[in-house]
């Protein structure tokens, strides 16, 4: 059925961005996911980003009820969910109004003309009809009476009108698949499986999908069909993975590979809750998911579980990190492993709960009372969430320390084509507990009895001895009061305090032993290095690649290890004349860098709009920086 029509040209393009937008009830997420699946089958590289309304059940037809799904796919490397939209499918007037500005001039818009009646315009708060007033003059518009066509196609069924109308998204999907020469079979298979026990609905969806696909062939108006060839991707088995999912999978992998049970304490918060949802499905891995009474209990229970010998993990967003701070400090003092995932969002306070922002780096690195350093990692893409979660767990247990993992909703909700890792090739993850009294870990206490020394350290890492309650002869007490060197007894001794503060700091610094050499994308030295961290990786690499295409000597480094910084970072910085630090905040990594490398100059680029960077924004800044006269 995918035989191309004679009257249509097929044009090969390197990449494209498609945005499906409609009312919350229009099934746009399903439509987008199915288009994604088809693109995966076409072996394109891809990245996606859903955009849900903040309201749970917004009134139908309103702008704040618009739900959207964006997909960027290509025959070349795809680093972001796309900046300018090539095809917008607008299921109603509100969706067109909200997303029109995203479409590039000359881009294609498919509109459901049946959803532009007077009352639709009113609900969308439009006092004009964009279909007729020239608003769309700069775009290629395909007017399709989607609702009517769907009803007509299903006129011979017994389905209610409501159910008939609900299948109109399949028409849009079929048409979009046709336009980009995608296979229709994956969607057909999905429908057969999904509605296997509802044959009437199954058949209706299949029929409407097919109608949509054929519509393009039979309607001459759609002149050009596009083809995006398979990308040259590393061989392997792939799947689409969302960041939140990948974080959960990374935690499960850490649990399996370390043979530690995963204890996940969590209090629901946007955008971290999806990790809880995902992990709660995996109880057959022995995972304990605990929906705690509050953010504090989520962290504190996880620390309690770590005390018991589990892999204690919790995830939250900025406001939740604030509440967990005292517990994290207790983790620093008791030197127990604890992983805290911070799905950053716009702040301060409740801020912009559904919008990404890199606002919590300073909170993660410095935000505790007392001298309380801990390792901070940042995931750089949805798929990288898996590896960063795994690494955070490995470091937390190896060094017996809380670790903060920074991610955000852009990573959490976004997905990409992810090469499924070979689990045998994951870094070794062996955790050794103290299981019996040894000469190294025992001494005679003040009463002359044998007493375990919980703060005896591994000379290489400085990690302390970890004995689980239930282990005979190793009874000991931990707590938040300053610990005496080795014995772990409460100590107010001045010298001891200084020593312990320094030892804890050195222990965290030792994590640099586990940080691989810094990878520079582009030239190893040059005029400009763009340094970022976390979810801005795609935009940074896109921008620097474009800069190199303009013959600029620009490289980029995107840090996974925010604290401690890689030991070789200073050398890398020194090989470039300028360093640009783009961040989705008011300048946080740059403060850390200025503190650590005071002789290096850093230029900031701040964007604080609850939106990710566009590559061109970074490129513009890079170009401007390089056109400035070089400082004497």
């Amino acid at each position, binding site marked *: 059925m995918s035989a191309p029509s004679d009257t249509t040209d097929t044009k090969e393009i390197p990449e494209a961005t498609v945005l499906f937008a409609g009312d919350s009830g229009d099934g746009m997420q399903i439509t987008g996911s199915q288009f994604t699946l088809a693109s995966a089958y076409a072996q394109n590289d891809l990245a996606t980003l859903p955009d849900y309304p903040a309201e749970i059940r917004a009134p139908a037809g309103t702008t704040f009820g618009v739900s959207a799904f964006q997909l960027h796919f290509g025959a070349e490397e795809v680093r972001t969910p796309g900046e300018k939209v090539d095809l917008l499918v607008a299921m109603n007037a509100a969706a067109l109004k909200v997303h029109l500005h995203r479409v590039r001039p000359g881009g294609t818009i498919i509109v459901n003309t049946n959803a532009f009646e007077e009352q639709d315009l009113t609900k969308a708060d439009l006092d004009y009809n964009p279909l007729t007033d020239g608003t769309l003059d700069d775009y290629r518009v395909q007017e399709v009476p989607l609702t009517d066509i769907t009803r007509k196609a299903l006129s011979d069924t017994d389905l209610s009108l409501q159910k008939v109308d609900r299948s109109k998204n399949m028409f849009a999907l079929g048409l979009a698949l046709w336009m980009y020469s995608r296979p229709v079979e994956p969607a057909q298979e999905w429908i057969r499986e999904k509605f296997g026990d509802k044959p009437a609905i199954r058949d209706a969806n299949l029929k409407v999908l097919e109608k949509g696909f054929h519509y393009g062939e039979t309607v001459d108006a759609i002149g050009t069909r596009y083809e995006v060839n398979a990308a040259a991707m590393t*061989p392997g088995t*792939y*799947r689409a993975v969302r960041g939140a999912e990948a974080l959960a*999978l990374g935690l499960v992998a850490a649990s399996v590979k370390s043979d530690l049970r995963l204890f996940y304490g969590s209090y629901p918060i946007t955008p971290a809750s999806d990790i809880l949802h995902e992990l709660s499905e995996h109880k057959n891995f022995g995972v304990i998911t605990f929906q705690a009474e509050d953010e504090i209990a989520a962290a504190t229970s996880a620390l309690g579980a770590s005390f018991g010998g589990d892999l204690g993990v919790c995830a939250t967003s900025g406001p939740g990190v604030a509440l967990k701070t005292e517990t994290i400090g207790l983790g620093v003092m008791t030197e127990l492993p604890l992983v805290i995932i911070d799905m950053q969002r716009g702040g301060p306070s409740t801020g912009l709960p559904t919008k990404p922002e890199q606002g919590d780096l300073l909170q993660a690195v410095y935000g505790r009372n007392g001298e309380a350093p801990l390792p901070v990692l940042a995931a750089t893409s949805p798929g990288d969430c898996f590896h960063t979660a795994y690494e955070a767990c490995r470091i937390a247990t190896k060094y017996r320390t809380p670790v903060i993992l920074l991610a955000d909703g852009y990573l959490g909700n976004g997905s990409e084509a992810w090469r499924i890792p070979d689990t045998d090739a994951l870094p070794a993850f062996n955790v050794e507990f103290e299981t019996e009294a040894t000469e190294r870990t025992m001494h005679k206490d003040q009463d002359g009895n044998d007493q375990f020394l919980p703060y005896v350290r591994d000379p290489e890492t400085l990690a302390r001895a970890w004995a689980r*309650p239930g282990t005979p002869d190793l*009874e000991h007490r931990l707590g938040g009061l300053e610990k005496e060197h080795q014995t772990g007894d409460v100590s107010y001794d001045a010298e001891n305090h200084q020593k312990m503060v320094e030892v804890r700091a050195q222990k965290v610094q030792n994590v640099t032993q586990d940080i691989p050499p810094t990878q520079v994308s582009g030239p190893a030295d040059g005029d400009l290095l763009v340094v970022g961290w976390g979810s801005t990786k795609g935009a940074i690499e896109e921008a620097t690649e474009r800069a190199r295409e303009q013959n600029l000597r620009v490289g980029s480094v995107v840090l996974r290890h925010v604290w401690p910084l890689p030991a070789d970072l200073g050398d890398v910085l020194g090989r470039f004349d300028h360093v640009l630090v783009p961040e989705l905040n008011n300048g946080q990594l740059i403060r850390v860098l200025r503190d650590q490398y005071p002789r290096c100059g850093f230029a900031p680029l701040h964007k604080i709009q609850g939106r990710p960077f566009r590559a061109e924004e970074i490129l513009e800044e890079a170009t401007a920086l390089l056109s400035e006269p070089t400082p004497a």
Partner: protein
Amino acid sequence: MSTDPPDTSPNGQMPDGTKKPDRPPGLADGSDASAPNASDEEATPSTKKPDLPPGLGGESEESEAPGTKKPAGPPGAKKPAGPPSPGGDDADDNGPTLPPGYGGDGAGEALSREDFQSDQEVRWCPGCGDYAILSTVQRLLPDLGVDKENVVFISGIGCAGRFPYYMDTYGMHSIHGRAPAVATGLKMSNPELDVWVVTGDGDALSIGGNHLIHVFRRNLDTQILLFNNEIYGLTKGQYSPTSNEGTVSKSTPYGSVDRPFNPVSVALGADASFVARTMDRDPQHMKAMMRAAHEHDGTGFLEIYQNCNIFNDGAFFEFTERETKDERALFLEHGEPMTFANGTRGIRLDTLQPEVVDLEHGDWSADDCLVHDETAPELATILGRMSWQDDDGDPIPRLDETGTQLPRPFGVIHRTERPTYAERVHQQIDAVTAEQGEGDLDALLRSGETWTIE
């Protein structure tokens, strides 16, 4: 109300370490005390004003001079230990009895009190009720038959928070109010552990109130010892959420205007499955209650009236001291009629209202009295409120000459069986695993739609 604290050393022992005068026969059998107890000893005037005594270093706002690592405690304060006392306080307990004179380490499998004492110097104020509680726990544990390595004490912040440091078991002195949450994670991670939570009235009911009610709701299998002294001790004398209205304290020089919590009613309101009350001045009753809390499958909540002799001395003397205890304390026994004052008075219900009846001069007898039923939640609610302020906000109704005021109940107020939390969590994991098979990491990573690039 007694005004001066008795000059007893910790645990009611005389400063020379000799054993305090014996308590009367145990209250657990329903008989009452009339013999003198430690607090009836000749009292010497002592510090009533809230000066910080030596040794009260702390983690809150108080500072400590350098070098004061080990402030001198009073003689005998290092450990609340006297000589092992077979047949002493332990005589009425039903647990395994130790051979006379037993007490050393390494003398076989059985554990002794000393096995549960850490080498850390006990640093509560001399005369603090905490000493008696610590001593009672250390005496009880060898009787419980649990492996020492499985015992864990988790505390929050406050004077009570130091408790784990003095126990030679696993322990964690956590952060303010969060001990129940730490315990929840720990117990889920290893349900075999015998987890005890030690907390105070500020720790449990103010900063940690949320965790407390949720641990009750979930019925985590743990014991919660709430040291209620109706004052903030470690921060030097502010009123607490259990302080009576009108309490004059450092932070309420004109009297507090807050209505206090009644911990027993809070626990009952949060559906706690075991709720009991005892007092630091009655080690035998305290020990019996701790044992009962421990035997209970689920959250064993024990409110312990604990005297803070520095900042709130005598807060509970009307219940704990000889001259008033008989009249004001009602010791509950499951299945027994509620009588007090050496059996001369009893409690009966007039519709839903408890009232005191005279069993000596009149028509009432013990047969007319309310019979305690630990399993009846409605009765528990009534008993919980039998220690409440009257409607005018006055503190606990005082016994007047007519003797009609209600006594305050001690003992197991409520006990009900229901599944425990960690058990249910693991049962669910086991059930899901049985149904789906043990997780396969590679299969999990490959779940959903996959495609292969050659």
